[in-house]
């Protein structure tokens, strides 16, 4: 059991975040204070929720790059309605419905129209980003009620915000869903070997569609949290989030080819992503390198993952071919 835990990809990600904190702490001890650690984790809540959503899509072997625009759109809707004095439940409900709808259209394009997911969601990203400008008239959504903004500040024992605790509960729930329920397991199975899943009677397209829909829904939850945390919404809110959350998933051990990893890993990755800009400040670099470093992480991890996989596939092919020639030799001998 312990051995299994040591070898899991989530453990590697947790090891990475511990090393990062200890390493930066060695350079600048101020980084290792309890306050800072809580801040890093609490500030990752929007990434965390969206990363869990996109993790579901990546596990099925697809990708969703419309997360950034979806987050911006749902945040703009929620923010505008709360500013205009609509009931909170309406505002939150409308944002979530919009997120779900975007996710379902993505799923429709990928499974029914058979558009490659990168193209489908890239197009959707453009469409939704444009709609944000239409919806907000290109203006910032400001003057959001203080009561809504203060929600993000509430903390349990001065440590985790209630938002982050809620996100942790969400991760636990999704993790159980994925590992302990029959339908939940379909997601990973589809990403692991779609052909094999089909032969077992698993609805491959259905599973993909559900993953896109859930990704849209969870991204909308991220949008709502964003409004409360940030307190205003610009027309470019959420742009660049897609790279952050994809990098979070990859850092957390989820394979872009599907079938490998867990939402726990995605959450750890999201915490790393949220910490990077603070890390840069604490080691005396400008936080403008944030995106550059995220991009480097993404490429380095994906490339090394691909190289390891290619070697494994090549080795398996050679073993198979060798077995074939041995068959004749042993049969004769």
């Amino acid at each position, binding site marked *: 059991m312990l051995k299994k835990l040591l070898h899991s990809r989530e453990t590697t990600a947790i090891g990475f975040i511990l090393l990062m904190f200890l390493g930066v702490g060695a350079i600048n001890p101020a980084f290792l204070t309890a306050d800072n650690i809580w801040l890093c984790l609490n500030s990752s809540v929007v990434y965390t929720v969206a990363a869990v959503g996109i993790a579901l899509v990546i596990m099925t072997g697809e990708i969703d790059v419309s997360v950034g625009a979806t987050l911006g759109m749902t945040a703009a809707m929620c923010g505008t309605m709360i500013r205009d004095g609509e009931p909170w439940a309406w505002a939150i409900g409308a944002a979530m419905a919009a997120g779900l709808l975007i996710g379902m259209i993505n799923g429709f394009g990928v499974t029914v129209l058979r558009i490659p997911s990168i193209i489908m969601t890239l197009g959707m990203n453009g469409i939704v980003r444009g709609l944000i400008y239409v919806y907000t008239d290109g203006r910032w959504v400001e003057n959001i009620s203080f009561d809504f903004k203060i929600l993000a500040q509430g903390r349990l024992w001065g440590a985790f915000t209630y938002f982050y605790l809620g996100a942790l509960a969400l991760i636990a729930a999704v993790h159980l869903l994925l590992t*302990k329920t029959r339908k939940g397991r379909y997601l990973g199975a589809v990403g692991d070997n779609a052909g094999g899943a089909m032969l077992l009677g698993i609805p491959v397209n259905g599973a993909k569609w559900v993953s896109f829909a859930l990704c849209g829904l969870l991204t909308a939850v991220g949008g709502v949290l964003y409004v409360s945390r940030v307190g205003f919404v610009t027309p470019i809110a959420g742009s660049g989030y897609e790279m952050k959350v994809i990098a979070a998933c990859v850092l957390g051990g989820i394979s872009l080819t599907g079938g490998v990893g867990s939402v726990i890993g995605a959450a750890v990755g999201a915490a790393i992503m949220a910490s990077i800009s603070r890390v840069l400040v604490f080691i005396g670099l400008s936080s403008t390198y944030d995106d550059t470093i995220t991009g480097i992480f993404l490429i380095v991890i994906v490339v090394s993952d691909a190289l390891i996989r290619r070697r494994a596939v090549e080795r398996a092919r050679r073993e198979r071919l060798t077995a074939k020639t041995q068959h*004749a030799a042993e049969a004769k001998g």
Partner: protein
Amino acid sequence: MDTAVCQTPDALLAVRGIIKAFGTNMVLKAIDMDIRAGEVVALIGGNGAGKSTLMKIIMGIYQPDDGEIYIQGRLAKLNKPSAALAEGIYLVPQEPMLFPNMTVEQNVLMGFDEKQSELRKRLQGLLSYLGWKLALDRKAATLSIAEQQLVEILRGLMREARLLILDEPTSSLTFHEAEALFQIVADLKAKGIGIVYITHRLTEVFQIADQVLIMRDGVITLSGPVSNFTREMLVAGLLPQGNVAHRLAADSPESQRTLEEPALVLEALTGYGFSSVSLKVYPGEILGLAGVVGAGRTELATTILGRDMVKSGRVLLGGKDITGFRTGQVLKEGLNYVTEDRFVSGIFRISDVAANTTAANLGRMSRFFLNVKEERKITKRFIEAFHTKVTGQDQPIGSLSGGNQQKVVISRALSTSPKVLILDEPTRGIDAAARGDLYAIIEELKRQGLAILLISSDIEEIMELSDRAVTMYCGRINQEFSKGEISQDRLMAASFGVAEGSAEHA
């Protein structure tokens, strides 16, 4: 179609009059087949005989155009894989379709409705009933092919499958693993499971099967209890009707090969997929390399071409040792290869005919900018010599017919002026008329002194073109034939591992 209900109600699975066409290509022409409980039915057939199409229909992946399938005498509607699974049919594919990142247990239990704890209990019970030792917590990616097959069989048995289809299960197994599998098949048979056993190895048929079925060109040419047949009778069932051997011998005289130096020599060449291959190809000669798909012929060709590692042995080209050369160097030394898979790696689909003809030869045609005039000249020469039907040199190659595409691909190989040419399945998927053209081209190249190694699964093609032939079986050359010795039944027998004079195992 007569109204007769299934005449054999005791059959686990009865297939009646199944017809399937893809476009104009009739793949299955009224197939009948019965499989009874506790019986192993061996299904044999060359490539393209329709075996896998038939199995996909039984698995509900394809829908037949006509015909019925009865399960225990009852008409069954198998319109999707889950319907076939529900009827107790399970296919163990040639390459196991496991989830590599899941454990054995997760792999077996995937797709069930029941509670995990109950399933686990059932799986434990099944394993002890079978007496298998298989670590359930291992990742599927770490299993050998033999173990992966066991997992696939477990999946089937957990679904209470009464009919298992094993598609060439021994093709990637070592001898001992195969022996172990036969034991398992015998056990399953004793437990009342019906088994369809698809294979290319005739010896296995006599080892484990009760019934045998041979398919060729979408029809069943031979069927009945194994004990009624000899190997030679099975080989005869695999052969096309109407022997064309005598016609060919007359119009292609034995080549004038004398004591000249061979152009290509392989000395005990061993690599991934083939072992101790020794052969010589002389200038002005076509050496046919026959065998079934998966025998290791393409691996041999691509290894000679430097795409994979040579484990031991030597490759000599015109007396020069080119073992382990990279692909570019091998081409430069004068050996070229026309791939078996024209559609995947043979053509630059949207480029024009001229660009495709000269693509292998750009180094010779240019310093920095391409010499377009030279490209036109070379292309024109080949189009005229081969009577390639094109509207112009700028026609995209993807819009040509298969035969004309292949002519362009051969032109490209020739534009590098090779001394040795390896042709891998040169006429696969090409219609009869274009095939004649290609044969004429290949004959002409031979007359011009090229040494040609012709890889083909089409025995008639080997007979038509070859001056000598060898057969490959399980990665080894198992028999050699001089021009006079080449005959359909000998080649077919050797391709299926029934070699004359060699130590047979059975």
